[in-house]
């Protein structure tokens, strides 16, 4: 288990990388809203059509994974600065990991159901 533990520099690398990549992914997602009138891009038919486009599904999944990793790690950093004890730090890390996996799993389920894969 100890060998699985990442060093803070490795976590920071992942944090920076997911932050930068999610910027690009979200930018593409927003551009998809702008290639047609905004209201039309959010119409039921268009949203369903988007979900049936495999590239768009991959993009949505990427945004979900990237932002979950980046956001939950940010939350972990804020919380471990609040209190200093190994027990608190381990609890926070485990809770944040579980929440992150939960959010990714639930989001993936929504994407899979909507896309009809």
């Amino acid at each position, binding site marked *: 288990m100890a060998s699985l533990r990442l060093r*803070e520099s490795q976590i920071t690398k992942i944090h920076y990388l997911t932050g930068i990549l999610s910027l690009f992914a979200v930018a593409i997602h927003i551009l998809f809203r702008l290639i047609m009138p905004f209201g039309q891009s959010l119409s039921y038919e268009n949203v369903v059509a988007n979900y049936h486009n495999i590239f768009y599904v991959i993009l949505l999944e990427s945004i979900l994974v990237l932002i979950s990793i980046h956001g939950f790690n940010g939350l972990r950093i804020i919380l471990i600065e609040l209190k*200093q004890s190994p027990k608190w*730090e381990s609890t926070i890390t485990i809770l944040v990991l579980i929440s992150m996996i939960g959010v990714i799993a639930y989001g993936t389920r929504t994407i899979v159901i909507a896309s009809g894969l």
Partner: protein
Amino acid sequence: MSNEENKKVQLKVYRTNYNKDDSSHYDKFEVPVKRWTTVLDALLHVKSYSDSSVGIRYSCRMASCGSCGMKINGKPSLACYTKISELKDDVIVCEPLPNFPRIRDLVSDFSQFFSHHKNMKPFIQNDKVSVDIDDKSDLVEFEQTHEDVDKYLQFSYCIRCGLCYSACPTVATDPKFPGPQALSQAYRYEADGRDNSKKTRFNIIDERHGIWRCHFAGSCSVVCPKGVDPALGIQLLKGHMLGLSKNNKKISTLRTKNNE
């Protein structure tokens, strides 16, 4: 000239004794000042003529020892290096340094601060050189160019006064964070060509409460009385650890007396 001679300022000094559970309060003193009077001079005047019980720590009076650090008018400063005339205020408020446990009046406890400094192993470590030398002919010296020295020189001017530590917002919330002084010293030895224990030091600072908790507020560099830029050292160190910046560190060559 006569106006200057008669000028007086009010010195508000934070008073408390934590060992006796005294409630904190400010004592006010009228102090005559000249153009060159420093806050330390004013405090020593108070001790000599008004209240000898005011607790302050000082030594060299020339910004070399780093003993007289305190919060002066809201900013961590050295009392011996802060002229009252430069503060441009008739009321000078002296408080103990924030982020340090307090002992009495303006004296704070530096144990934790020095312990962080010590954790960084702030000395040259080189496993190629033996420290147990009996024969003088075995003595070696490192060769360094001026460029090599420039990489770490400003960080070696640190006098461990603790002003950067007291100004750091991360230290305020996380006492396990080593602070700008210790981290800049880690960089100072990391950048030194005579030292080859990069891995040991990186392991020490690459922790949950280590270097990555620095949010680059930069207040450490603003308050440093010696012109050191700890925030720069920390960012350079982060870059080296992430492999983003190239550290062209060349371990200095050894020169023995025999191969001169």
